[in-house]
């Protein structure tokens, strides 16, 4: 989206779209093949529950439904008409990025033409992106006049829970089109041969877990290997009745190596911190895939030893897990770059806020207020989440994260002040500020502002470099070793 498009025009387009977003009519929903997959006995009540998350949308030929690279939390079912799917060439810059992970594949030696396919009534798209929290991998646009049903994630979860046939269908699509690619991207499977990978793909089970649900319990028979495709899991150990966090798993991480290497019981409990999507591989299948590959075995051994070592540290000194526990409970584990202020050395001089304002045209983009944990203050500043939910549903694409970068940024000229991102941010780290202008409807003009890590500033975030006492630090909760050393 270009900044050259007048804001008022963008706003009108958004409002026009909002007018179309009326909750889907129950009778019309009931006639859809997607809903017919729900057992008849509970269909009416399910429709009642999902209605607020389901909307019919109409598109004229050529209009884009979803664009490659954008974040979406919805699955789309074509009601009538046809759509064209254009999957860019593998070297296109937005492709194959797990949220936040700098994992752009090397460009192929020969340019590959984009793949095009068509979809018709009854077809689904967007499900893999919504469930796995990947950016949308292809642009889908209307070929003929198109009517689609947009079903948002909460409704999709409800539907997959009550309609095994739908779940099976989505899993099948994921297994056929995404799983092999995703397995390859996990370093562990990089050298597994094609035949073994094919077998893993066929035999893998795709599982969903709700927040708080136990995936594997410490001491039980370890017969599976888990790969996280979406969400977060807490890895904990029971010490004298206390459940102590040892580490956590994020998309792309795995667990179950001890089952393959040692034929041991689970040394940890795995618990879903939020909605989690996992790939489960049977112990025998994984053992066969690992076979006699020494490098792969080494990698598993390294992981197993590191985790057992951390387990030992936590068991001996429960305090060692306190920051991890705090990070899991407060959601800081999502943070790729979290601003923390050590209150024992902070002189409350506000140089950080002043420097932030200086860098952002006089408007600071963080507030030196927030949750306090021991001597650390977690100010109201964007965490630059691994899974930035604020990116979903921006009507103008003003909020974005470029590939292989950390910074989630807002383009002020294209932001129409709809506050979708601010509402979605679970940590309230995006604030709406008045620009001083007035909209056509007489309301004050607003834009969303958030920390962008002072993008483009050679010295890095101004808040950190301007702190005269070194009290402000930025840390990524990906690296718990670093977190422990900073927060000790």
């Amino acid at each position: 989206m270009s900044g050259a498009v007048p804001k008022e025009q963008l706003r009108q387009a958004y409002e026009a779209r909002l007018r179309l977003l009326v909750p889907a009519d129950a009778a019309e929903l009931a006639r859809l093949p997607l809903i017919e997959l729900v057992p008849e006995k509970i269909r009416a009540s399910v429709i009642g529950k999902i209605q607020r998350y389901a909307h019919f949308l109409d598109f004229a030929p050529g209009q884009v439904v979803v664009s490659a690279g954008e974040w979406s939390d919805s699955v789309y079912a074509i009601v009538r008409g046809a759509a064209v799917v254009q999957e860019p060439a593998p070297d296109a810059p937005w492709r194959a990025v797990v949220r936040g992970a700098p994992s752009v594949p090397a460009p192929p030696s020969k340019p590959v033409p984009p793949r095009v396919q068509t979809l018709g009534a009854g077809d689904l798209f967007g499900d893999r992106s919504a469930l796995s929290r990947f950016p949308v991998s292809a642009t889908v646009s209307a070929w003929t006049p198109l009517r689609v049903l947009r079903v948002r994630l909460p409704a999709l979860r409800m539907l997959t829970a009550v309609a095994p046939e739908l779940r099976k269908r989505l899993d099948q699509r994921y297994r056929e089109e995404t799983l092999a690619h995703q397995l390859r991207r996990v370093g562990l499977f990089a050298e597994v041969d094609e035949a073994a990978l094919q077998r893993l793909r066929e035999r893998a089970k795709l599982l969903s877990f709700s927040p708080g649900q136990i995936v594997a319990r410490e001491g039980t028979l370890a017969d599976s290997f888990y790969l996280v495709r979406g969400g977060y899991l807490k890895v904990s150990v029971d010490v004298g009745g206390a459940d102590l966090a040892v580490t956590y798993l994020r998309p792309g991480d795995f667990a179950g190596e001890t089952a393959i290497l040692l034929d041991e019981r689970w040394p940890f409990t795995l618990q879903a911190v939020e909605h989690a999507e996992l790939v489960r591989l049977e112990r025998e299948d994984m053992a066969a895939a690992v076979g006699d590959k020494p490098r792969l075995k080494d990698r598993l051994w390294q992981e197993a030893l590191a985790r057992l070592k951390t387990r030992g540290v936590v068991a001996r000194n429960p305090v060692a897990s306190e920051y991890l526990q705090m990070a899991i409970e407060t959601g800081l584990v999502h943070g790729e770059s979290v601003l923390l202020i050590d209150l024992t050395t902070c002189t409350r001089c506000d140089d950080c806020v002043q420097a932030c304002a200086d860098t952002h045209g006089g408007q600071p983009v963080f507030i030196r207020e927030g949750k306090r944990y021991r001597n650390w203050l977690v100010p109201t500043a964007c965490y630059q989440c691994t899974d930035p939910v604020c990116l979903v549903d921006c009507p103008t694409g003003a909020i974005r994260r470029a590939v292989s970068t950390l910074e989630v940024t807002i383009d002020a000229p294209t932001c129409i002040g709809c506050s979708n991102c601010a509402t979605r941010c679970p940590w309230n780290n995006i604030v709406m500020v008045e620009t001083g202008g007035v909209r056509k409807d007489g309301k004050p003009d607003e834009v969303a502002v958030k920390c962008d890590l002072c993008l483009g500033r050679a010295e890095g975030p101004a808040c950190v470099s301007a702190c005269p006492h070194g009290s402000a630090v930025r840390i990524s909760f990906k690296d718990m070793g670093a977190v422990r050393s900073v927060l000790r």
Partner: protein
Amino acid sequence: MRIAAAFRPKQPRVFAAALAVLVLLAAAHAIGLARGRFDPGRGLGLAFGILGAAGYVFAAAYSWRRRAARVAPARFWTQAHVYVGGLAALAALLHTGLAWPQGVIETSLLLLTGWTTLTGVLGVALQKGIPSRLTEGLRVEVLLERIPELRARLVAAADTRMEGAGEVLARHYRQELRPRLERPLPALAYLIEVRAGRDRALEPLRRLSGFVAPPDKARIDDLIGLQIEKLELDAHLTLQRLLRGWLVLHAPPAGVLLGLVVFHVFTWLRY
């Protein structure tokens, strides 16, 4: 434990280097004195003067730290300001030959050197001591500018809680407690102990609790919580004001000192 840790030098190497320079300066001065008559306008005396003046200029440039962020982060400039400022004061002292100066300008220079050094040391002590006290001793963390707003909220919350209270408690609240909740009550005692006066302030409410009806007892418990919060706001108000206010004692005299140094150098060159 943390308070003690806060007073440790952040960069032990820089601290050691500054100590080494200090010893070198003192040794050079001692050698200079031993070798004959000391003259502030020549040789070693002049060198001390140049060092001192250069140090003052560098220390005064601290206000440009944000612009100099490309060279080094602000914490580097803070450390440099403290150590170079301290060593500049020592060099200025050695420049006088440890003798009381004759002229008005020279005397003013020496007095201002002493004042800015002392207020600088006071600033370091406050900046090292207060944050850890605030953090260790208080539950509330607040922005200085928001204290009046939060105080007003506390009063509103207390007023709401007091609706329907018995006469004794209502009178005590109206005459004694509410005015204390409403007014900012900064006290230097917070510098010594951030919870200073807490027991004394809560005592009347605790006593009242012994002879009021059970619903009012619950009200008193809530009022105690609100009053503790107000006392913490007062502690923040006092200590955060001190953290900012000490600069008034340091920065303007330092500006005058720099001006006098320039004048002193000019007159020395001219006459």
